[in-house]
């Protein structure tokens, strides 16, 4: 079993960015939806690629590459035993690292008990995973957001204020069908799961 030590990040990395560009500020009602992380911690592998954290995360990726080889598409779930263990930060950085290496990567917020990634990446999202699961006319691409300056795609869990759902959503045939559709568009799908 591969084991990687991820260094602790300074508290400042979790503060909102000081450069005045808020997450979601450039989301437009028309045209492709975009996003930018609200805090540096979520972009560590991009902003500080030589940091010990980024180096350690590369080890996580190499281990995953070793396990899955050239198999694509591949769906990787990030999970922890308790809340606040650093799972979402690790998942976002893992997805960014993959996206930087020419993979077509989708990051999905499936932590329906704590919508950390949705809040941090797309606080103004109007649609998300839950909207796609209820059926209807909506296409996947209407709910996807692209990261500014990278090729990473993100699917929020749901719009702000929606009641979080529980595990039965993740066990549904609707989400299995959605994943079948997403596998046709992406080579790596990174899923943030609830503890």
């Amino acid at each position, binding site marked *: *079993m*591969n*084991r*990687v*030590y*991820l*260094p*602790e*990040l300074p508290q400042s990395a979790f503060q909102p960015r000081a450069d005045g560009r808020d997450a979601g500020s450039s989301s437009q009602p028309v045209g492709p939806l975009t996003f930018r992380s609200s805090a540096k911690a979520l972009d560590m592998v991009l902003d500080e690629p*030589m940091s*010990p954290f980024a*180096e*350690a995360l*590369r*080890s*996580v990726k190499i*281990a*995953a590459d070793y*396990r*899955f080889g050239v*198999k694509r598409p*591949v*769906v*990787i*779930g*990030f*999970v*922890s*035993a*308790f809340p*606040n*263990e*650093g*799972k979402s*930060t*690790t*998942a976002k950085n*893992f997805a960014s690292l993959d996206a930087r290496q020419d993979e077509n990567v989708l990051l999905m917020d*499936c*932590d*329906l*008990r704590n919508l950390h990634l949705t809040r941090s990446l797309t606080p103004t999202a109007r649609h998300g995973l839950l909207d796609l699961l209820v059926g209807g006319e909506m296409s996947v691409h209407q709910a996807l957001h692209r990261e500014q300056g990278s090729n990473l795609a993100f699917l929020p869990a749901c719009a702000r204020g929606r009641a979080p759902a*529980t*595990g*039965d959503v*993740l*066990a549904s045939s609707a*989400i*299995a069908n959605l*994943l079948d559709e997403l596998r046709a568009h992406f080579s790596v799908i990174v*899923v943030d*799961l*609830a*503890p």
Partner: protein
Amino acid sequence: MTDASAAASFVDGYQLVIEWGRTRRAAVAAALAANPVIAARTVGVSLSKVKLDKLELFDAREGYGYGSQYMSRYDHRTPEHSLGVGN
């Protein structure tokens, strides 16, 4: 980890994230025992929020790549940290 187990129908492999120095070994073992599908498909374990200075107190050199003390070998701006050279 109930939700994560429920996702097993579409997840190929799990990455387990554990907070270093805080989450108890027994608690992780119990969670994995209760969710065998996750245990069977876990491809990697990340210990998060590691304090590198304290990590060196333990025998934990394997697998965390180029930690700070190794990176200094490549940083020529700080020759006083280049281990064993010129000292």
